[in-house]
């Protein structure tokens, strides 16, 4: 991490997928999106982008850490790792090798509400991706020895991402405190205690339960012909038998009655804090569906760029923060939170930073945002909607994410319009409704000294170096 990256621009998470009428196979000129459903229930979304001879294929499963019971946290992510370890038809390592040989890039990722696999290839090689991906939807071997080794890899991953990153630890503890007994209170990568006792039969069960065509969405974006893609999908995914996948319980967050505060001690140089409020998401708030969009714009008013309030007032004006930002995801499966996190400035402390942040939130409650500010964040929304079309991968991400968490990518088709319709009054309303002391959780990092001494030097002799 360099000084630069601490100050680097946060990319605006906004999306637009435009109007489309529904039917079994539907296409729209305006969006270039075609939708189809196979007989086994697998949904297919295709978006044409003919700028370069490239295609990205992603398979999304409705499964992630928020589906996991206590005791086996992290199982979705470990299973994702094991998905590269071979099927009856394609032995261990063959998946990656075949994609590599074809000049492709492939990887996978796990979140709270989804697990997704993707390949990016030159456009004529799409069938290779479908052949391999459909094979591992049902055909994984899940070998015991491979599992034992891969579990160590995941444990190293946890050390790298969380154990040795003070601020990640604070985030993990924040979630645990803010969401007691709730699936969002658990880390995506799983608790270390659970990882250490995970076994291959846990993975087997998870795999059988959730890796089914009816629980999967194929997203293809790029220089393709939709009819050909559908025919290809029928050939490779069509024959896979579906099993019924139960819908998970819709957890509600237990009503909070007072501010919660926690402190985490870890080796670090800088203090850090996270402050959050429970707020709704689009999926769980149909009767007030403008609220998440108002929160999204509110977030941009505070932290939508260098002209926004946090940069202007907390970093430059009062100089109380070195870095401070907001975070809100309107498209999670379950209601989440509105977060503010930051490091105090050199001459300030955590208490001063918290006070300054709360003062910013108070202003939003008391005074409508100015016309000029609202116009600026809306201009950014419109521009971002154009910029994001520069990445085929990102376009696929958006479609897959919406379809996975909201069960209907069309719900977001007029996201930009929803954002443009938000008023100053609505922003004030959500601020007053959710930014309450009894709805707040605060997690603070108490930095413990890092004692790095001068390194010792042991020049290695020539013999030792060449020994092999």
């Amino acid at each position, binding site marked *: 991490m360099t000084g630069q990256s601490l*100050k680097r621009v946060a990319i605006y998470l906004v999306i637009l997928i435009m109007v489309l009428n529904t039917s079994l196979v539907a296409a729209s000129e305006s969006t270039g999106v075609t939708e189809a459903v196979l007989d086994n229930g697998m949904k297919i979304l295709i978006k044409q982008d003919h700028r370069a001879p490239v295609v990205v294929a992603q398979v999304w499963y409705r499964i992630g850490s928020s589906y996991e019971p206590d005791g086996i946290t992290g199982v979705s992510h470990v299973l994702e790792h094991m998905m590269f370890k071979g099927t009856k038809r394609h032995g261990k390592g063959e998946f990656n090798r075949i994609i590599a040989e074809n000049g492709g890039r492939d990887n996978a990722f796990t979140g709270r509400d989804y697990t997704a696999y993707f390949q990016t290839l030159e456009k004529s090689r799409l069938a290779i991706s479908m052949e391999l991906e459909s094979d591992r939807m049902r055909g994984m071997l899940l070998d015991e020895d491979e599992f034992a080794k891969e579990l160590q890899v995941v444990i190293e991953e946890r050390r790298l991402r969380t154990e040795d990153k003070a601020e990640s630890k604070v985030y993990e503890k924040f979630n645990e405190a803010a969401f007691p007994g709730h699936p969002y209170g658990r880390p995506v990568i799983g608790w270390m205690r659970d990882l250490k006792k995970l076994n291959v039969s846990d993975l087997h069960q998870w795999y059988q339960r959730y890796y089914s065509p009816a629980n999967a969405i194929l997203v293809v974006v790029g220089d393709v012909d939709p009819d050909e893609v559908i025919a290809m999908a029928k050939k490779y995914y069509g024959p896979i038998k579906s099993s019924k996948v139960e819908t998970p319980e819709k957890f509600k967050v237990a009503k909070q009655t007072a501010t919660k505060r926690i402190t985490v001690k870890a080796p670090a140089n800088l203090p850090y804090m996270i402050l959050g409020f429970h707020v709704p998401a689009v999926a769980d708030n149909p009767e007030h569906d403008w609220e998440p969009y108002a929160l999204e714009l509110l977030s941009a008013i505070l932290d939508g760029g260098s002209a926004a309030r946090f940069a202007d007032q907390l970093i430059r004006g009062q100089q109380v923060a070195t870095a401070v930002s907001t975070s809100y995801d309107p498209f999670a499966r379950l209601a989440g939170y509105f977060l503010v996190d930051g490091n105090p400035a050199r001459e300030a402390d955590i208490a001063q930073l918290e006070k300054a942040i709360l003062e910013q939130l108070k202003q939003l409650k008391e005074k409508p945002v100015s016309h000029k500010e609202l116009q600026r964040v809306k201009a950014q929304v419109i521009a971002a909607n154009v910029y994001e079309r*520069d990445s085929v991968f990102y376009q696929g991400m958006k479609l897959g994410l919406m379809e996975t968490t909201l069960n209907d990518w069309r719900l977001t088709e007029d996201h930009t319009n929803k954002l443009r319709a938000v008023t100053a009054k609505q922003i004030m309303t959500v601020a007053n409704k959710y930014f309450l002391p009894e709805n707040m959780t605060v997690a603070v990092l108490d930095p413990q000294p890092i004692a790095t001494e001068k390194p010792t030097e042991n020049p*290695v002799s020539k013999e030792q170096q060449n020994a092999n």
Partner: protein
Amino acid sequence: MLTNQRRLKQRLLIAFEFFILILIFPSHASAAPKIEHWVTDNGARVYFIETHALPVVDINMVFNAASAREPADKQGLAMLTSDMLLEGSADLDSKAVAEGFEDRGAEIGTSSLRDMAIVSLRSLSDKEYLEPVLELLAKVIADPKFPEKNLEREKARSLQSLDHSLQQPATVGRRRLYELLYTGHPYANHPSGTHESIQSIRRADLTDFYKQFYVASNMVIALVGDLSLTQAKLLANRLSRSLKKGRPAGILPDVAAIKGGEHRIEFPSTQTHIMTAYLGTKRDDPRYLALKVGNYSLGGGGFQSRLMDEIRDKRGLSYGVYSYFQPMQQTGTFIASLATKNKNLEEALTVSNEVIDKFLITGPTEKELVLAKKNITGGFPLTIDSNKKLVSTLASIGFYSLPVDYLDTYIERVNALDRKTVTEAMQSVLGSENRVTVIVGAGVKQQ
């Protein structure tokens, strides 16, 4: 913009199955887009790709004005100068500058590492948006005020950023590595500075640095997007005319050979980070492609590489292990790195060294070489499939004075490589006793 949103977003969303290695320079060739190249009246070199698929324009102004150009006792000066460009110009203060871009949905950014200091702009191409944004950009780069008060604030923030980055054992190790590889050379400068150097920087240092290096003949403009050639020429002229002509930065001193060694740093982490490094090559070195292809099989090709196979796949020792060449204006680096739990240090270190040493004796097998070439040539279209990727590719071609047909000939040049060429290239760069290893973790000295 001034946020650290990335931290939460990254953590919230995604646990990747393995590291995606971002290649230092994309691979290339067939049906490459046409590059127009010219030099403006006052000496700026321009590289342009016309594409109308999206109503967007991307501009990278690349100055030879990064940390390699700052004095050793003023480390961090180049980055501060780059940051401070947006802190006020002529009659505009920092907020007015930010509003000028953001009111029109434009994205402005500055960055500076060892070779390149970049000012980047992304805007909608519609005249209504692009015109005012360009006017502002020209003004910002032509007349930065570097206000004293803002500088004091940014210095304090730089110190905080530095402390923040030093919370990570990998950063601590990487800084040490550069000091060891480049003793006495400007590449030993830390782009983000040191505590002492940042404190000693004065406003006059910035104005002097700016005057010398932010000049048209020390700049490359990379342009991609929804513009005609005529429009692109007007745009480039406008930007370059806003600067003084000045002089190119000149050639950096040669990098001296180094003595290898192993260096251990104690750090309170659960993992030990191992970084194995050699001096690499210049960006325009004729061996560079052979090295890139060779490194694919050693540690650049993810699961197709020997390091990943031995360290992660066979032994479960590390989540990620990879190696890469970072070529620069002068001799760059080769670095292989991994992180493993403290107790596994010696095993991981032994395996990693054995893999590297063995590879340097025989090079890739024929099978490995074929796979590397197939991946690099077959993946060529992926490396130039967006305006964002194109503009940074152009910036590299321009900054390192690579031929304009670089993309057109890329595939055939990769395909022409044989085992002997690749192996000899790897041996000639890495096959010496100049290996520098830095190890950072808890209890590393006792082991």
